[in-house]
């Protein structure tokens, strides 16, 4: 009984790590653009498809497929960023919603059109179980946890110390002042966007061996999971996003075990609506910023 509970919590933390890596990109993009990126899950899907393509068609190893997946997503994100995201600086919130919805439709359905809508089998990854403190956990899940921690430590350092991180924070505070002091705002937006998309792709490639199946609609599902997380974490708040993702991951895994698997996917949106009603500024900040 207790061991099932702990097992589920550990599973929840792994799921939470997956969400966290995707959500942090989304929240950073919100920070600089003031727009929710409804297409963010699609980059997760693109990364997975890139890796699947590399393994199935090019016969590469899993390690190489990670690189292929992320690089192909970066190329697509660069094109989307140049054509669309740069124009969104200073645009009203509604046009951000509509434009990113449009991008999501185009990316998702192009992939379905090219590769077909069916489920595909993802072969590769490290699925051998390892035993840690009496629990057996697939190697891949351990890898996800480690990568998640490294990503967040790296992002924390980048945001506080690097030139790019400082520029990002500046843009998220005041766009006009950035232009006055000579920060290239569209450039910062583009870079943040590409970084976020690459992180989503990384998360997708890492999760693929655990989920096994790859399909065109998987991105939308992830977008719907990460929307509540970024609201819970407080929009634009990197550290809050990490904890919010963990909370949602654990909650989902507990609901799936003790309430019923079919209710798992609604946990996020139920939480989102409750959050918007009572604490729209997030769990981890005391004042509303947006």
């Amino acid at each position, binding site marked *: 009984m207790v061991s099932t509970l702990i097992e589920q919590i550990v599973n929840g933390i792994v799921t939470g790590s997956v969400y966290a890596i995707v959500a942090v990109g989304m929240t950073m993009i919100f920070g600089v653009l003031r*727009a929710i990126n409804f297409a963010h899950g699609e980059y997760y899907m693109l990364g997975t498809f890139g890796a699947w393509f590399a393994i199935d068609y090019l016969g590469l190893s899993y390690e190489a497929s990670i690189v292929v997946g992320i690089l192909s997503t970066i190329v697509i994100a660069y094109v989307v960023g140049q054509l669309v995201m740069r124009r969104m600086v200073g645009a009203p*919130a509604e046009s951000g919603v*509509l434009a990113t919805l449009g991008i999501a439709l185009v990316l998702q*359905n192009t992939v379905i*059109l090219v590769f077909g809508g069916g489920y595909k089998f993802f072969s590769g990854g490290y699925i051998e179980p390892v035993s840690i403190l009496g629990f057996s956990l697939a190697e891949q899940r351990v890898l996800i946890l480690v990568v998640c921690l490294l990503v967040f430590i790296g992002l924390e350092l980048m945001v506080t110390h690097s030139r790019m991180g400082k520029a990002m924070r500046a843009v998220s505070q005041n766009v006009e002042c950035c232009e006055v002091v000579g920060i290239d705002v569209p450039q910062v937006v583009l870079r943040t966007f590409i970084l976020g998309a690459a992180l989503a792709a990384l998360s997708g490639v890492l999760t693929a061996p655990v989920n096994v199946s790859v399909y065109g609609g998987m991105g939308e599902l992830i977008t719907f999971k990460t929307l509540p997380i970024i609201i819970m974490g407080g929009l634009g708040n990197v550290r809050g996003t990490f904890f919010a993702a963990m909370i949602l991951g654990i909650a989902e895994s507990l609901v799936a075990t003790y309430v019923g698997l079919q209710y798992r996917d*609604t946990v996020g949106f139920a939480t989102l*609506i409750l959050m*918007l009603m009572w604490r*729209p500024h997030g769990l981890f900040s005391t004042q509303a910023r947006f």
Partner: protein
Amino acid sequence: MSLTQTSERARRRDYRIPLGILLFSVALAAPFIGSRYVVHALIIALVFMLPAHGLNLLVGYTGLLSLAQAAFFGIGAYTAGLLAIGYGTPFYVNAVVAGLAAGAVALPLGVPALRLRSTSFVMCTLGFVIIGQAIAKNWISVTRGDMGLSGIPKPYFELGPLSFTVGGTTGFYYLALAIGILATLAVFAVVRSPAGRNMVAIRENETLAESLGVPTWHYKLIVFMLSAVFAGVGGSLYAHYLTVVSPLTFQMYYSTTMLIIVLGGGAGMISGTIFGSLLFVGLTEALRITPELRMIAYGLCLLVLVFWFKQGFAPVINRVWNAIGGAK
């Protein structure tokens, strides 16, 4: 000055009324002109025109961007389907109850959701669609879960001693056309009333509207419910036409379709919604474009609309219309 203008007008004949009559007669004669498949495409366009009219009131006139329309569409479809299967009620009862049910559900959902602004409101309305789908899937005793409702009977009418069933594509086309025209007239009446002007005032500047004594909160709530009523009636048509309702009625695909009709046609224009439903639903259905290709086209359209054609395509049509019609 005014004299010259009058003479100018007199020389140029106004063809808009005869043209309108021509278009209306084309709409009436469509089943005899077009093939069966074209009529089917027109029915689908008319079915989607109803929720789009509701969404136009919300997005175009009151300025609230909502993705919840598919949820109310689904509620309407399920209500009509359950009534028709369980009680065998006439069509007009199903349609009215479906509309009222959707409107009634919109009240408790609208009260909290309308407190939110811009992006948060959009996400909240998106949540309604997702949760609606989960309920339709899991409330198996009523909705039959993933199997959905099937075998919904053809719409039948009972007017005093007279009772008849609307069967066949042609019959259903006239039914959908009649409801579509009624709905268009209803939207027209709302928009042209003082209430319609207040809605536009809320869209343009909510704070200013409130300071001028417009009860903005009540207006937003009523328009939100009204848009749900339109979606519910549309859902009842959908259920009776396709004879099948599944939990997939609650999906983003439908919300996006309705949004693209309104924005593509031109938000805040009745002619825009009619034109949009014919273009984006009727034409794509008639050309038998695959769903994937259609969604790519919708996506590209959204991008073009957001960045280049902020008014949608209706102003272009209106200009052509006026040029042909001979109005200044």
